[in-house]
């Protein structure tokens, strides 16, 4: 394999691995802060126990998100030096802002939260998890604004052999980035809420801490439903933005080969890349795709055949990832809606079928996240900066294929081991359930 392919595999592998942990961090940090706030305002100790229990899972997960994030920042220079040199004038800024504004806030106040139970007042303690959670969420904004620039480059001019920034405001107000931010952030909330529902359902199946886990489930069901619906709505806006700015990505997502007006949407569809058509096209909803893409039933959609084959993304993986993501998202909306109603019924904990379903639903949002990443980044190919720079031109020239093969091997071994340990610990602490000893917890808030 050549150095470009190996570098792409390494970037995808390390980014997708990083993305196993980050969405849960985004969602669980906010929800833990919510629980602690409930405790501080009501004084109800169940909320404190919830804070401690879900907070513990948050921290075990958080550690791996942080350390795998270092890889992401180093990797632009390590493997994509030509890219970094060419676009650093624009791309470096949001990354540096992310580090100075949000990473410090997040890391410092996580430390205060973990170690500060006995050292600061209740309110300041709750404030510290809020600061950490907000910082975490904000860091997603800056990295997604940077990513949005790769998808829809704005506010720059090609000069002095590189892309130079001309309009910082355009970069930070890039609509592509803000839509993506809302889509991604809320997907993290939904993922965290499904984890809480799943773990709670497992304990309810074992009739363990019924009050604690019913309350957790009820809270999470509402979060999951609201978040999943917003993810769906922002996904629709995102698709409109993609149709406008990245026609090749949109055509691949929908396996649309011909350029036409008033395009319908086939419910059963499968692309045949070699013959540049679809081998299956059934159950067409007339004009639906035009309506979805441009909110106009008669709009023209550019097909893949309007672009030379070397400028098209890998159609089948993008098409499949998009369908899977959307399908799993639909399941999440329905399952969380059912969760809201069923968890308010008296015999909720006897509904073993539904509780079992929710345990097995824990991986669903994780898969949807990964497929979403694939749609976004595979769909951008062959460009690293859409329409401006090709991925093949972006790779480091001083790095050899052997070096990347070895580092990739190292990542696979290291990440494999750490991921296994982390998931093992998450499962262990999730199954263990909340601490029983309330007196110890109240003592911890002794100075409150």
């Amino acid at each position, binding site marked *: 394999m050549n150095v470009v392919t190996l570098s792409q595999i390494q970037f995808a592998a390390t980014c997708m691995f990083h993305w196993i942990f980050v969405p849960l961090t985004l969602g669980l940090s906010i929800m833990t802060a919510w629980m602690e706030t409930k405790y501080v305002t009501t004084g109800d100790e169940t909320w404190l126990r919830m804070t401690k229990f879900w907070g513990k899972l948050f921290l075990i997960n958080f550690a791996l998100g942080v350390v*795998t994030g270092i890889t992401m920042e180093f990797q*632009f220079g390590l493997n994509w030096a030509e*890219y970094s*040199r060419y676009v650093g004038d624009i791309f470096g800024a949001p990354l540096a*802002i992310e*580090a*100075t504004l949000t990473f410090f806030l997040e890391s410092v106040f996580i430390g205060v939260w973990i170690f500060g139970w006995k050292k600061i007042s209740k309110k300041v303690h709750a404030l510290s998890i809020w600061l950490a959670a907000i910082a975490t969420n904000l860091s997603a904004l800056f990295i997604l604004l940077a990513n949005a620039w790769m998808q829809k480059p704005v506010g720059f001019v090609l000069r*002095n052999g590189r892309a130079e920034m001309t309009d910082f405001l355009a970069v930070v107000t890039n609509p592509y980035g803000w839509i993506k931010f809302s889509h991604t952030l809320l997907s993290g909330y939904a993922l965290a809420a499904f984890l809480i529902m799943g773990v709670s359902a497992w304990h309810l199946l074992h009739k363990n801490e019924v009050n604690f886990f019913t309350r957790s489930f009820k809270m999470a069901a509402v979060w999951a439903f609201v978040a999943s619906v917003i993810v769906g709505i922002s996904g629709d806006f995102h698709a409109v933005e993609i149709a406008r700015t990245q026609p090749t990505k949109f055509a691949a997502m929908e396996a649309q080969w011909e350029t036409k007006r008033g395009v319908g949407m086939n419910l059963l569809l499968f692309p045949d890349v070699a013959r540049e058509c679809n081998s299956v096209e059934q159950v067409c909803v007339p004009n639906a795709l035009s309506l979805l893409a441009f909110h106009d039933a008669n709009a023209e959609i550019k097909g893949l055949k309007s672009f030379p084959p070397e400028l098209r993304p890998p159609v089948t993986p993008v098409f499949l990832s998009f369908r899977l993501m959307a399908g799993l998202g639909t399941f999440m909306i329905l399952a969380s809606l059912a969760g809201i109603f069923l968890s308010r019924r008296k015999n909720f904990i006897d509904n073993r079928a539904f509780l079992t379903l929710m345990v097995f639903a824990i991986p669903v949002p994780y898969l949807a996240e990964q497929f979403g990443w694939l749609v976004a980044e595979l769909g951008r190919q062959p460009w690293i900066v859409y329409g401006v720079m090709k991925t093949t031109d972006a790779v480091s020239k*001083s790095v050899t294929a052997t070096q990347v093969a070895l580092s990739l091997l190292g990542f696979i071994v290291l990440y494999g081991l750490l991921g296994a340990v982390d998931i093992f*610990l998450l499962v262990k602490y999730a199954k263990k359930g909340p601490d029983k000893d309330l007196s110890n917890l109240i003592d911890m808030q002794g100075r409150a």
Partner: protein
Amino acid sequence: MDISIFQITWFVLWSVLWAVYFMLDGFVLGTGFMSTFIAKGDTEKRVLINAVGPVWDGNEVWLLTAGGATFAAFPTTYALMFSNLYSALILLLFALIVRGVSFEFRGKLDGVIWKSLWDKAILVSSFLPALLFGVAFGNIFKGIPMRNDFTSLQFSYDGSLIGLLNPYGLVTGVLFVLLFAVHGSLYIALKTVGELSDRAAAMANKIWPALLVVAVVFLAYTWPATKLYNNYMDVPVLLIIPVIAVVSLLLVKVFAGKNEIGKAFIFSCLTILFVVFTGVTGLFPNMIPSSIDPASNLTIFNSSSSLLTLKIMTVVAAICVPTVICYKIWVYRIFRGRVTSEEVLGNSDAY
């Protein structure tokens, strides 16, 4: 305003970010690998990990900020530094990854094998970055074999991982290891009580002579191995910087010998800061010199961002960095007390 003012400003800021990173992560790395030699038994190990627990992550962010600042302000330097030093930085990255999770994972299970496994992980993953950062900076001071053409934008590099392990790179590597060993031992002595604290102070005193010898060798060897002294010959008043480094290093021993650990630690901080300043002052205006062709040197002038980007980043830094320093001081005040075994055993969230 002229772009060179911003380029110089960012060179200063770049130096400060690296210096502060080494000062702060220096004691975490030092505590990490010295814990093997200072702590006896599991409880003492945990005390040491918890002594750095609240701050290690925040300290490591200085590295991410130094990296991010290099990317935003000097993208060409960022690109060539990371890609040319690929294998060394991958190793460094693996070590930093393991170090971070070791703290989190070690206390989560009770098995003896589990804990001894993570103890070894902490030893290696704390020692390796100390050595590799030193080797990397030694090679940056010396220059690396690269040929850069800034008009045709052709860049090439002729080095290897083995090539970085040249005598001067290794001396700088050992210098960093010993600096962090003393720094970490002093931090342990400062943050713990009783016999553990005494043992750590004794360790700092014991290592210090070796540090002095290596520091002298480093300063002498820098003369033939690098061009760092040129700036000092041109502007002799700058010699105040290495003088402060040397005086601080001597005062570390003076105060450690009198068992005034707080003062010794402060001078250890100053030593690390001024060792870094000594190096980068000698580099200016280069960021990474070429060892084979002076025209290929990466300087702040030929590798920087545009004026607009530098201006924006200056505003961001002017707002964020002082704010960060304020809340970090507040946090260090909250956790200023010494860490005891009772405290660690009584906190279910402790590492």
